[in-house]
């Protein structure tokens, strides 16, 4: 059990630090939260800088234009960019983390060369058309229909939770091609150009009032059969293959951020006056903050263990450890924000800093983090996965 970075890993880190300290001051000001064209421009310009410096697709294989970094280098990349306050992946999320890896694993050479270089350069933005109003946790029950018409599929349906749809060029779309087959056997994975006729996008307002998600109505959208990735009716397997691309690094930036926030929260609690003492003098609150510090330290250690597992078996399926991390991290993150609200008292009623306390980011995140235990597999689904796939307990029904 060795937690020290090797000399090669340290060299990678130092080079990255140098590049970040030279590059970050040259970035333009961040655009307004709901100005999506400006956000696309900002996020893709950052992606272009990463690309030109050789950091794009950090964990993608070299033969597909990535850096081919080891899982530990990937961890270091995410840790360092977070600590340096670099921009997030933003609108490039689906392309870099989901659609791109799917194309690498399952697409034809033509499909790969059509999209992978453009994703890496920040020229192409993707969105995800998976969830539907009646297909959430039970994604395989999706109903958006695709009917073959010559060399096209004609697609009609209703997608939900499509992030960045308003600024995307392409959509990774799951459709039902065989309504009579068992639900996992009748799904197909398509690349849908977002300028196709018949697509209507309605922004979906979240509890934050933000608009990164949309509903997408598809009315007889014609998608070339050439845009199909994998075989017809094999889309469920194609989708699952991509999930194994994840190498234990899913929450690195947020865990690094959480460790920092616990420290910041302690500082805030020492400043907040309450009756004749500070919030930090409240033994219960102080111990709860310490408890969360212990938990995030442990989650950071768990991340390093997951990355070590990925390094040990580079071709292996990701550990079910991913479910353990997702379940515990998301719940800890929510508790951290509740604890911040306890320390802030009435100052917790503002999503922007108030009363001279830097509490705004906690309260904004208190609302935002509601989604964490729901998105990408609810906590209940994660517990089923742990119970069934790790512990071997029988399925219900």
């Amino acid at each position: 059990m060795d937690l020290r970075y090797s000399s090669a890993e340290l060299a990678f880190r130092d080079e990255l630090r140098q590049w970040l300290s030279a590059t970050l001051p040259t970035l333009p000001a961040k655009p307004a939260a709901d100005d999506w064209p400006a956000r696309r421009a900002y996020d893709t310009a950052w992606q272009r800088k990463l690309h030109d410096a050789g950091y794009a697709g950090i964990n993608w294989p070299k033969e597909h234009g990535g850096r081919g970094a080891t899982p530990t280098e990937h961890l270091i990349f995410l840790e360092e960019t977070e600590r340096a306050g670099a921009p997030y992946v933003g609108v490039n999320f689906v392309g870099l983390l989901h659609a791109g890896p799917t194309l690498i694993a399952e697409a034809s050479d033509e499909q790969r060369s059509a999209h992978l270089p453009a994703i890496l350069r920040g020229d192409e933005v993707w969105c995800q058309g998976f969830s539907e109003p009646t297909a959430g946790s039970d994604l395989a029950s999706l109903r958006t229909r695709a009917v073959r018409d010559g060399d096209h599929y004609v697609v009609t349906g209703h997608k939900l939770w499509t992030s960045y749809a308003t600024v995307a060029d392409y959509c990774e779309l799951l459709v039902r091609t065989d309504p009579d087959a068992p639900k996992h056997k009748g799904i197909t994975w398509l690349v849908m150009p977002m300028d196709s006729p018949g697509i209507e996008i309605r922004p979906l307002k979240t509890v934050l009032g933000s608009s990164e998600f949309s509903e997408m109505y598809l009315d007889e959208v014609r998608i070339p059969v050439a845009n199909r990735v994998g075989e017809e009716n094999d889309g469920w397997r194609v989708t699952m293959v991509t999930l194994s691309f994840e190498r234990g690094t899913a929450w690195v930036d947020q865990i690094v951020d959480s460790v920092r926030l616990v420290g910041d929260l302690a500082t805030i609690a020492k400043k907040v006056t309450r009756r004749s003492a500070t919030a930090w003098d409240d033994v219960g609150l102080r111990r709860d903050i310490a408890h969360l510090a212990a938990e995030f330290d442990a989650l950071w250690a768990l991340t390093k263990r997951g990355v070590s597992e990925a390094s040990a078996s580079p071709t292996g399926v990701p550990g079910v450890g991913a479910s353990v991390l997702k379940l515990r991290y998301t719940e800890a993150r929510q508790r951290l924000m509740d604890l911040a609200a306890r320390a802030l008292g009435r100052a917790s009623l503002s999503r922007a800093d108030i009363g001279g306390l830097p509490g705004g980011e906690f309260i904004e995140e208190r609302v935002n983090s509601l989604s964490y235990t729901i998105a990408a597999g609810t906590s209940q689904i994660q517990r089923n996965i742990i119970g069934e796939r790790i512990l071997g307990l029988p399925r219900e029904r």
Partner: protein
Amino acid sequence: MNFLPTSEQLDLQQGVRELLDARFPLEKLPGGFAADVWRSLAETGVFSLRTDLELGLADTVLVFEELGRACVPGPLVGTLLMAGRADGPVTVADAAEQPLLVPHLDVSSSVLLFDGDVARLCAASALSGPVVAEPVDPLTPLHEVVALPAGEVVARGDKVEVLRRDGALLTAALQVGIAARLTDLAVDYAKQREQFGRTIGSFQAVKHICADMFVRTEIARVALHAAAVSCDDESVGAASRAVAGAKLLADEAATVNSRSCVQVHGGMGFTWEVPVHFFLKRAWLHATEFGTADDHAEALAELL
């Protein structure tokens, strides 16, 4: 960086597990302290890992997880801490505690006595006091000691802090072992017990209890391993913060998993015959040793 146990570490851990499965199976647990098992552990080198074998705490905690997993009764932590200085079992007492309860005094040859910033070693026979009539852990007899003898000074100042820190780490390892065994016991029962015509482990209400037990244990285990590695090499992180976090999370894993395990066992969990209660009572004991979860939360808060 490779945070996985090495194959040597896994072999070491597996060796101790096999020894305990053979020599101290669950059926033997209600008998309490077993001198023959203790002798085998000592002969195998379990207590002299750091002195004779020159292994680190990262190796030692893996072995102590196994001792916790088998719920081995006896003064395990004190004996390891005093390896090379004392022969035979060494129990631990802290002069600051009230009431001053000393476990396993009758089977110990010496006592490691913490007294502020000094640690002393004295003969077990030099301590006396009434036996606690109803110890909550029936396999850990306690004496209520009134007067403490002088004894030979074994550490002062920072070295005492290191002894306390290592003691907390090793106790956390026992708790992780207990938490893991409780998860196994609950899962095994949930796979075999049927109600309403189905295996109860198929019900999500039961399955999710088991999943949470597993997650709690994993979190405590990585915290423990990271803390042990930090103690062996301070360059990888602050050892005192890591140990405080590990003891806190390990106590929580062992005590919460204890209740969960009883709950999964239903009425059988409330019987003496099913061994779950021995683990639960041991977890409660360890939760008071080398600092409670509250003590460690305070220590960690100091460092924030």
